[in-house]
């Protein structure tokens, strides 16, 4: 088995130590940085995402794989920066103003990073202005919003409205997620998509950006 295949499989097993070791060995062996990233780490996370989607594995398996992904990325990132290899897209993400529940948002951020996106995590209790300021400053491709309380869902519409007001709606795509939400609600407020969980968020963002 080649080192890239071994890297991908170690990541799928959630073996962070092995992933770090193999990433170092691949770099030392002169393998192309983008190949290590795309065919090793991202390919491994992609298999994990598919297996999760088909209920072969569970959330903790995905999160163990994500930790292994981070272990590999920490070694690879300086090279990606030095070689000017861009992420496949930039996502500004946060839990909306009035809401402190961030576990779902964290999981989506982890999955997006695992799929090769750059994620700017604004944390929780994020105002519409902060979402838009960050998205404009970072030239983000996507704004991702999460809400757990029905009472904080209207903040999502305020973000969409502010994006329209600032003329970035359409250029910056908007996705929403969270326990009380639905695709109907996303449509109703003018968001580009509703994402059920981290795996669907990855698929959804890729589709919106034409990366699938």
């Amino acid at each position, binding site marked *: 088995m080649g080192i890239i295949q071994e890297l991908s499989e170690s990541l799928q097993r*959630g073996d962070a130590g092995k992933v770090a070791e193999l990433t170092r060995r691949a770099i030392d062996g002169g393998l192309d940085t983008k190949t290590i990233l795309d065919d090793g780490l991202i390919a491994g996370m992609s298999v994990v995402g598919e297996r999760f989607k088909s209920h072969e594995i*569970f*959330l*903790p*398996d995905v*999160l*163990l794989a*994500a*930790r292994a992904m*981070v*272990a590999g990325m920490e070694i690879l990132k300086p090279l990606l920066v030095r070689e000017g290899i861009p992420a496949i897209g930039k996502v500004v993400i946060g839990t909306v*103003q*009035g*809401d*402190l*529940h961030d*576990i779902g948002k*964290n*999981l989506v951020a*982890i999955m997006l990073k695992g799929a090769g996106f750059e994620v700017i995590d604004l944390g929780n*209790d994020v105002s519409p202005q902060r979402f838009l300021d960050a998205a404009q400053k970072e030239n983000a491709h996507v704004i991702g919003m999460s809400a757990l*309380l*029905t*009472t*904080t*869902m209207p903040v999502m519409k305020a973000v969409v409205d502010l994006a329209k007001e600032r003329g970035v709606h359409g250029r910056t795509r908007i996705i929403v997620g969270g*326990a*009380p*939400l*639905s695709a109907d*609600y996303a449509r109703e407020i003018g968001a580009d998509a509703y994402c059920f969980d981290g795996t669907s968020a990855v698929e959804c963002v890729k589709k919106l950006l034409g990366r699938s």
Partner: protein
Amino acid sequence: MIRKILQIPAAEVLPSRGAVMGGQGIPRWTTPNGKISQLADDALSLYGEKARPAGILMEIPRDEFGTVFQGRGSNEEESPVGPIYRASDRLALFAVTVGEAVCAEISRLFRHNDFALGSMLDSAASEGTEMAARAVEDFYRTHLRDTGMLDSLGGTLCFSPGYCGWHISAQEALFNALRPGEIGIALNESFLMQPLKSISGVIVAGRKEIFDFEDTFSFCRDCRTHSCRDRISSLLEQ
């Protein structure tokens, strides 16, 4: 009218491994792999070490609760809570928490990329907080039964601001009346509690039939759990 602080032993509100795994989307009928089982055990052990469950309970007259319920006047036009509390026999405000340490540990684990254990601990803490709320409700119901204020035709049900058309801004009035700062729960300017793993609300005691309502309110459309159905069913078994 009672007002009581309850220090709840963590062991009494220690979730089962199955409940924690359920919070992770793992059905009870599956056999998870060894790594997942170990994570669940580690999370429960951490929860047992860090959780400091506590509750506060205070009875409140119906007219005073009316002011709490009204809050800043932002409730939905129709809410099941209004007619239910007006038909109640007794009302008690309550708040419970499993403490800041467990919430801080969840954040720490995520910061250190230990996502799986962090997420598992989050599920344990969520379930533990629900169990603490049920423990306070059980305490109050037992108290009412022991003092002859609730007979076998009566039961209790909890409602919380932020749900069932009761606007979250009513937390402000609830906190002013209950003062749960005494057990370490604070309210931020968005009306959310800190520590995050806290629950507040009202325990309504009354004849069982007053609690029966259909989940057909406009806001029920946005509710994914419809947990009111199960709660009403268990009330009928009380």
